[in-house]
């Protein structure tokens, strides 16, 4: 059976709301409009305006309201129309949500989910195209999830809602309409994925490629191309940026001895940098070539379609980087490049 990511998210919300009356959804256009991207479609009809709450355009206000309700044991799912707008509420995500369990010495945990589309879409310009994975992924007290497939979306969103801590849940607009096969198990309402575990989407022995969200699909396509050229790539779908599954990543690199990281966000202090540092810390001696880091170009996102395409990783960039890593065989040789 196939299911779109949109339906996966929608059904996960629906089931968790059905299972627990403390769960509610709040944000701009989540109710009568059925969600700017229709992720909350049908929920207003089913659960009423008390549990599917349309707000004025006040990210700081409604995110903080969500946090306050979570302090009292409700389980809000706060939708940001896009994660770019979460900047207006970032103090509540960082201070009011992430730090309160610690500041209160465990008295006040904060079971809240902040969700919405993250990263570049298509043709929406510099302000609407940023990836917030690295920022939120740096903050103690937050868990940061990044689904790729429909199974990821269902399993991780359910896990996020049931989790007692604040979760930042980064979706991707361009994946909403994509269909993925889903297992019967994944369709069960009890289905749930563990937070903090990466998934090996494709096993391989020559090189490890890490990716998350939309880039997992790109990495898989790159792996197919590489296969034809005799390079057998292992593709890791991170699923969680925080906690980062260092164990899975390092085990893979210890096998392949080569690493390419892929992300759409800005390069500096990005997820690729962290993965590189994690591998250097844990598996330095196993690395046979410099880590190849692929990220969005270090520029605000341009509007023009041709420029925009150049600003984000493409499948051929991944192929090229993987080859580069494979042709460099010994550490010392690398410095010649």
């Amino acid at each position: 059976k196939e299911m779109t990511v949109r339906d996966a998210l929608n059904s996960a919300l629906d089931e968790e709301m059905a299972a627990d009356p403390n769960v509610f959804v709040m944000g701009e256009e989540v109710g009568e409009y059925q969600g700017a991207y229709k992720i909350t479609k049908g929920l207003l009809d089913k659960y009423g305006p008390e549990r599917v709450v349309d707000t004025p355009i006040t990210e700081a206000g409604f995110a903080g309201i969500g946090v306050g309700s979570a302090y009292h044991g409700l389980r809000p799912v706060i939708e940001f129309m896009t994660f770019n707008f979460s900047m207006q509420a970032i103090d509540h995500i960082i201070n009011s949500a992430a730090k309160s369990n610690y500041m209160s010495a465990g008295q006040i945990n904060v079971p809240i989910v902040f969700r919405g589309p993250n990263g570049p879409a298509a043709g929406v310009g510099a302000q609407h195209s940023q990836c917030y994975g690295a920022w939120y992924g740096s903050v103690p007290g937050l868990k940061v999830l990044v689904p790729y497939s429909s199974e990821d979306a269902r399993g991780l969103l359910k896990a996020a809602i049931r989790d007692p801590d604040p979760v930042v849940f980064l979706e991707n607009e361009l994946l909403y309409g994509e269909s993925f096969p889903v297992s019967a198990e994944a369709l069960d309402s009890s289905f749930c994925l563990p937070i903090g575990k990466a998934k090996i989407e494709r096993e391989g022995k020559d090189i490890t490629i890490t990716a998350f969200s939309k880039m997992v699909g790109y990495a898989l396509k790159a792996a197919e191309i590489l296969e034809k050229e005799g390079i057998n790539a292992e593709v890791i779908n991170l699923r969680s940026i925080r906690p980062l599954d260092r164990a899975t990543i390092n085990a893979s690199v210890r096998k392949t001895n080569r690493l390419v990281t892929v992300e759409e966000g800005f390069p500096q202090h990005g997820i690729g940098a962290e993965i590189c540092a994690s591998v250097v810390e844990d598996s330095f001696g196993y690395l046979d070539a410099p880590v190849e880091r692929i990220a969005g170009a270090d520029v605000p996102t341009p509007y023009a379609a041709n420029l925009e395409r150049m600003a984000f990783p493409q499948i051929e960039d991944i192929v090229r980087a993987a080859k580069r890593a494979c042709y460099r065989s010994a550490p010392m040789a690398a410095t010649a490049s």
Partner: protein
Amino acid sequence: PCMLEFMQTIVELLIDMDLIVNRDKLLTKEEGLEVYEDMILGRVFEDMCAQMYYRGKMFGFVHLYNGQEAVSSGFIKLLKKEDTVVSTYRDHVHALSKGVPARAVMSELFGKTTGCCRGQGGSMHMFSAEHNVLGGFAFIGEGIPVATGAAFTSKYKREVLKEADCDHVTLAFFGDGTANNGQFFECLNMAALWKLPIIFVVENNLWAIGMSHLRATSDPEIWKKGPAFGMPGVHVDGMDVLKVREVAKEAIGRARRGEGPTLVECETYRFRGHSLADPDELRDPDEKAHYAARDPITQFKKYLIENKLASEAELKAIEKKIDEVVEDAVEFADESPAPSRSQLLENVFADPRGFGIGPDGRYRCEDPKFTEGTAQV
């Protein structure tokens, strides 16, 4: 219908309070034709955008202005070149009214290098330093402090830089939904406190995407927030360009004279969905019909003719001219070149030293690694 009754009540209230301006202050023929042409330009340009969007010539979010022309034309045509306009994602028409050529706006929408931002900004981010159009802000409320800062500059120039004749005014345009956002109130306070030459122009089109103004706002009369923050607040029929123009004149005059800010609520309506991607299923057909019947262009046309300010033929000529202008803009945009590869890395900084520039002081934009992020740009 409840909405209509409600608005009725407001209007009556305002008339009672003598807050609704006197329609008798007329405009000259030249002014009338200028305003008419500007309104037609706004309408025809946006209709063309819809066509071009559906033909795949422009992409992403495209928010059209149809129905609200009386606000842009009523206000902006009163400005000097040195005055500043700050807009939102719904910014094409504000840019046009302020004088940015249709060619430059259309090319920008096509993502072409002849666009007013060389294709780097896009629909939601129109800038023209020459015309003092300072953007194009895609985040709700974000443009309001920036506009307040532009107004602060006029005062600074007068008081600190001793440019005694600097009487430049800033207009900040934004919607009803935005008037619930914290930045709006923070700036009302500072603008009033410091008597800044700014006019906060709320284009209350009754909806913020699919959120009705009445469901979003505890006291829906936005103009009242003016007095609450110590500045004049005015409500005006935003479908009547003459009324808008009179209110605008007064507010702009006040700002120019250094007497401080004004909040103006223009009751208007958008004739299309929120953006070209919006199915627009929530708005009541009666409501749409009510406002369609008050089309600001039709109304103004009638006024011009009835008051003998223009003949049918003159107006037709304007319409024809504008059709040509817009056709020409499309042709121009279509034929213009897409940005070159080098543009990707240009303009990140005014001074890019230290950011991986080459020995000639220019970006190393042809670095083969640059799309991989590892390039130091």
